[in-house]
């Protein structure tokens, strides 16, 4: 989905709020939110792709305004309710207030049937796919051409794995793009590498 989470290359954001030795956690509830979602993954209640997708399904204004760990706990609660472990009513009763959850999921999709294997140095193009469900292709590489620099072991295909569909494992390729190709006349020169699933790629001539 072309969601609010797909931040790469969006314009208008200000200076980085950088401090040396910045903390990972700022409050005890953040540690708990992080631990509880990891606990649910460990127990097999949901997988990481479902977890990421439930964050992406948050209402955009909520997503932008929420801190990182509020997004974590919203995804966790959404999936616990969707999987039938808890009900929203119980959560709201216990929390003594509204408990905003993410929006329902749109359909996912299974692996591309005829996938090509690539070698380091191959030129590849990212398919111009538009999907309503989960995808790990950032919008800024859609339809763009780059060069394969390395290949990973095979992983479950996220577009299926986030939706309870049969997900075959497939490799991801680290693909090198030129920033000037990604944002013509509108980027500082750099090489930008993205981990791209095999199903998202086709050979470029």
């Amino acid at each position, binding site marked *: 989905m072309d969601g609010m989470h797909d931040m790469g290359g969006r314009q208008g954001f200000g200076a980085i709020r950088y401090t040396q030795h910045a903390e990972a956690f700022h409050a005890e*509830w953040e540690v708990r939110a992080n*631990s509880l979602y990891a606990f649910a993954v460990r127990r097999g209640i949901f997988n990481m792709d479902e977890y990421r997708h439930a964050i992406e399904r948050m209402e955009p204004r909520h997503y932008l305004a929420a801190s*990182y760990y509020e997004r974590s706990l919203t995804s966790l609660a959404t999936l616990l309710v969707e999987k039938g472990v808890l009900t929203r009513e119980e959560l709201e009763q*216990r*929390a003594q207030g509204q408990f905003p959850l993410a929006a329902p999921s749109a359909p996912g999709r299974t692996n591309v049937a005829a996938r090509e294997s690539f070698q380091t140095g191959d030129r590849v193009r990212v398919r111009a796919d538009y999907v309503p469900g989960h995808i790990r292709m950032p919008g800024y590489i859609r339809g763009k051409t780059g060069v394969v620099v*390395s290949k*990973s072991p095979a992983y479950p295909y996220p577009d299926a794995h986030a939706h309870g569909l049969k997900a075959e494992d497939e490799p991801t390729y680290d693909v090198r793009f030129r920033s000037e190709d990604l944002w013509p006349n509108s980027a*500082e020169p*750099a090489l930008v590498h*993205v981990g791209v699933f095999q199903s998202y790629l086709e050979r470029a001539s």
Partner: protein
Amino acid sequence: MPSHDRLIQRTATVEKRVEAIQTALDARGMNATGAVKELGHLAQEEWNPKNGARVVAKAWVDPAFRERLLANGRVAAAEIGLSLPKHHRHLVVLENTATVQNVICCTLCSCTAFTIIGLPPDWYKDLEYRSRVVRESRTVLREMGLDLSPEVEIRVWDTTADTRYMVLPTQPPETIGWPEDRLTEIVTRDSMIGVARL
């Protein structure tokens, strides 16, 4: 139709929402509280940048280890007792040089090799870093205090799959010959993310 009560009810605080999830799971006999203790300890005490610092220091003093690390980060990290979660099947180690600066980000969420370099700092998860670092990397690094000369090539790595990355910073020349333990102390998390040089 939502009830009138529901419409005027305020959103619960994040603290109350987390508490609600934890107590509801506990009430089902799932011992979420036990898991919070265990995983909270791991996240705050075990998964920290000291792990990655050991990897970097060893790579600086042991050329054979450095070779193995660049070939397969996961296997090399295991040699010194460090592991990654099951779903991080691959650790790619990116070597900086005098003319190459590697920088890690995650534009879609905030993935990192957290068992090795620690859980991500706040700025890494902010919308500013996620949106800007892929498109205006040099300016972003300058804002963060790393003013690279024009001949340094910037290589950004967006963690969009389950491959994890860490940067192998260049060793400061004045530390050549130091023992490994002492080197470990100078390696920072931010240098392994690639937004700082040592």
